[in-house]
Each structure stands twice: as C-alpha cells, then as structure tokens.
C-alpha cells in the first residue's frame, strides 16, 4: 500500500496499522487484506461484487473494519456488503470510503450495506466519507444502508462526510421490530459546488420501538444540501427527528422532515432549523482572542462534533 492509500485508510477508519479483530480492506476494487476470527467470518460474494460478514450469536466486544479506498482515477465500482449479525451480540463495525483523485476522470464508489441484526443484539456502526486530490476528475459516492432490527435489537450509527466529495446521494432505510431502537447521527459539510442529498427513512413496526435521528449540516460557498428525514410510526412507538443546519456564503439547504403515524399510540416529533452563524457567537469567541475566521471554524467544528 502506498502513502496515499495509507493516508486514506487513516482518514476513513483511523487506522495506522492493520486493525485488531476481523477486517476486510478493499483497495482500488480489490480485496487488499482480510482477517477473520473464530466468531466473525468474511466471505466473498460469488454472484456480485462484495462480501458477506457473518457474526456468530453471542459475539461480544468485537469489531469489524471494512474500509474502502480508491486512489486510481476513473475507477467506478458498485459493491454489496451484507452483515448477518446473530442474536445477543455486541459489536462495533467501522466502514467508510476514501477517494483520492488526482486525475482527470471521475472516481466513483457506490455501496449497499445491508444489516440483519438478530434479537437483543447491539451494534455500533461508524461510516466516514472522505475525498481528496487536485485532479479535475470528480469524487462521487452513493452509499445505501438498509437495516432490519429484530426484537429488542439496537443500533447506533454515526455517519459523516466532511467535505471532499463532489456529489453524493446517501440513503438509509431501517425497519424496527418490537422494543428495538435506532439512533442515527449524521454530519455533513459541503463546500465549493458540491452537492449532497441524504434520505433517511425509519419504519417503526413493533410496539416499544424507538428512534432518534439527528442530522447536522453545514453548507459553505456554492454547495447544495438536501436532507429528507422520514419516520413512520406503525405501532406503539416513539420517534424523534432533528435537522439542524448552518448556511454560509451562497450555500443552499433544503430540509424536509416527514412524519407518518398509522397507530394512535405512535408518538412522533420533528424539529428542523436552518440559520447562519449568529453574530453574537462570533463576537463571544473574538473577545477570547480568536480572529473571525478562527471563531467561525471553532463554531463549525463544535456543531459537527
């Protein structure tokens, strides 16, 4: 692996060396390294590009890293990764995609991650998108995440895309059985003329299911962001959605929360706010010695923390 690839790996998965536990590193369309453990198996799909990650019931305190890195300009790929998580597990999954494009052709990674989470299992999922490079070729990503939570399962997702990606459509869909819960924290920063669209849709089908969806976006310069957050309450459930955005320069933000209830015991709330950085916030930090630009950076860093 060269320096560019190593740096991408560090950005998307915070990895300096090979991780502990199970992993599959995909580099320029090929599997570059793989490790399986006694309780986590990774198998290459035969009918289409991608892998199956099979986690045995009762697997606790283990992690799986599946970063994807692309440093070859013009590479386009579509990958399907399926996660089969047994009952009563407690695992952390670190995904993420980094593209370095110094060439003139567009590089593109589209991925579909499907999660089948067994009864009572707990999953933490971290996905980071990163782009770099000075080439004219665009860096494009379109990830789709499909989640099915069984009775009593819970999943927490932290997804982020802080600049660097020219065009993205991110789709997240989840179906919740009884007493299951999902928390999604999505962070995005766009700049230049980047375009980002996110659709998050959660269907709460089981009694006692809960969801908390929090989206924070910052649109700088001439970038465009659109976020659609939808919750369907089809049982005695409770759901909360929050879209909070900072708009700067000539940025455009469209935020659409959508709630649908088909059960009288569904309790659903949404909040949405778009605004610029408050002048008094800048002023406060300037009285502490920061320049206006440093103050702005600190406010954005905090907002996306």
């Amino acid at each position, binding site marked *: 692996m060269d320096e560019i690839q190593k740096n991408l790996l560090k950005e998307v998965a915070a990895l300096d060396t090979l991780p502990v536990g199970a992993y599959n590193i995909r580099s320029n369309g090929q599997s570059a390294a793989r490790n399986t453990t006694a309780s986590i198996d990774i198998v290459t799909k035969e009918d289409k590009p991608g892998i199956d990650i099979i986690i045995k019931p009762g697997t606790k305190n283990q992690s799986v890293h599946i970063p994807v890195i692309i440093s070859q300009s013009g590479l386009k790929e579509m990958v399907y990764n399926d996660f089969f998580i047994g009952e009563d597990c407690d695992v952390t999954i670190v995904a993420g995609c980094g593209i370095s494009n110094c060439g003139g052709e567009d590089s593109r990674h589209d991925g579909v991650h499907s999660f089948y989470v067994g009864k009572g299992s707990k999953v933490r999922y971290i996905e980071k998108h990163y782009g770099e490079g000075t080439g004219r070729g665009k860096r494009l990503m379109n990830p789709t995440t499909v989640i099915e939570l069984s009775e009593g399962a819970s999943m927490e997702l932290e997804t982020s895309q802080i600049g660097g990606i020219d065009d993205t459509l991110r789709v997240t869909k989840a179906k919740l059985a009884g007493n299951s819960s999902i928390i999604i924290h999505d962070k995005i920063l766009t700049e230049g003329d980047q375009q980002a669209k996110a659709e998050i849709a959660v269907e709460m089908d089981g009694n006692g299911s809960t969801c908390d969806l929090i989206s924070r976006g910052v649109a700088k310069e001439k970038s465009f962001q659109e976020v659609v957050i939808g919750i369907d309450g089809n049982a005695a459930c409770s759901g909360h959605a929050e879209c909070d955005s900072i708009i700067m320069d000539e940025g455009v933000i469209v935020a659409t929360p959508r709630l649908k209830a088909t059960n009288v015991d569904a309790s659903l709330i949404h909040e949405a706010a778009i605004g610029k950085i408050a002048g008094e916030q800048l002023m406060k930090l300037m*009285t502490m*010695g920061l320049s206006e630009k440093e103050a702005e950076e600190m406010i954005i860093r905090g907002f996306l923390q």
Partner: protein
Amino acid sequence: MLKLENISFAADGKEILQNVSLTVDDRFVAITGPNGSGKSTLLKIIMGILQPTSGRIWLDGEDITELSITERANRGISFAFQQPVRFKGLKVRDLLELAGGKGKDGGARFAHACEVLSEVGLCAKDYINRELDDTLSGGEMKRIEIAMAAARGTKMTLFDEPEAGIDLWSFQSLIQVFEKLYQETSGTIMIISHQERILNIADKIIYLKDGVVLEYDERDRVMEHLELDIHPGTCAVLQKYQENCALGNGVR
C-alpha cells in the same frame, strides 16, 4: 491604565454617551446608574464591540480606538456578557480551555478549566463536558460566562451585570470570584452593577446617567450620594441620585 477621551456614541439619532472622559488606574471600578444610562455601551466600546462616534481610547499608552475585538482581547481585555451566548456542539470545556489555555499543556488546561468551574459554584465533573446549548439554564450559563472571563486572567476584565440571573448561587461566591481575580491578576476589574454589595468592594465608582458621567470618585464618596434601596430576592436596587431628588426630578 485605561483612558477614555471625549467618547461619544449615538445610535438611531439618540446620544447614548456624551463626551465621556475617564482615566481608570484603580484595580476595581464599578459602574452604576439607571437603566438606559449607557453603562453597557461604555463597556462594549472599551471591548471594541461598538465603535464610538467620536473620541479615543488608550490602553497603557497605546491608542486602541481602531483595534478590532480580537486585537483588544489579545492585548489583555476580557468581557463577560450580560446575556451569555449559547453554542450547539461546543462544550463547557472547549470554551474554558480556550479562555485559560494559553501556554498550558492538555492536562494543565483541563485542570484549570475544572478549577474555574468550581469557583463559580459548579461541580466540574457534572459540567465540564456539557454542551453550551439550551440544556443549561440561564443561571448556569451566567456562571460559566463569568468563569470564562475570569479564566483568561487578563489585565482588564469587564463584567456586564454579573449578578443578573444569578439565582440560587450564593452572592458571596460571586464576590469571592472577583476577589480572587483581584488577587491573582495585577489587572483591573470593571463591573456594571446595581448591587450594593458589589459597589461596596469597589475602589472607585462611576455613576452614569443619560450618557454623562455624573460622578467618578472613591467608593465612599460616591456612595454617600447614592441612596440604595434593596428589594430582597430580586437583586434590584432602586437608585436615587440626591441631586435629582433635590431638584424634584424624582427617581430614575
């Protein structure tokens, strides 16, 4: 030493400050006066938040009139706002470490942040990682605001009505913060206050009314002319300026 020379400020055709000239070389100066007398405007002009319509400001012999807020902050002026600002995502520790972190490593910065929180009566363990958002009450925000200004330990610290919104916290603790700042820095503290107990610890008092300095003298001499009437529980002080009473102009 801070020197204000013929400072005037007008907004929307109204004169808020008129030819204010002051030299502040004492350690603890309180500014008092009726609402709308120009007290906050005066402090904001010193910090650079507002630009005077005319006049000059000097800090230790340097003309700082044209300097930005940032430049003044870096020359040693700090400001505690009357209405603290909230930030989504930024934590108490982020701002306290920024305030008191100069020249300290990570561990020392954190320890200092915890120490100043305790001084304003907040348990560091419970507050250090809280976000400075709507989950904090007005009183909590106010104490953190005071802690941030004090944590900078600069040669000039300006407090705009620090007592306003301080609810259950003992007033004595607030005074201890000022006393500690007084002892630890060799700088100047300027406080806008209506509270007799704060005025009582000042070296000098500035009495402003209608944008004009009516008195600026040793505490006891100014206090003789102020008749203070404290309403328990409200922190409000009704001030009567004897001269006005004598002229039959009534109360503020």
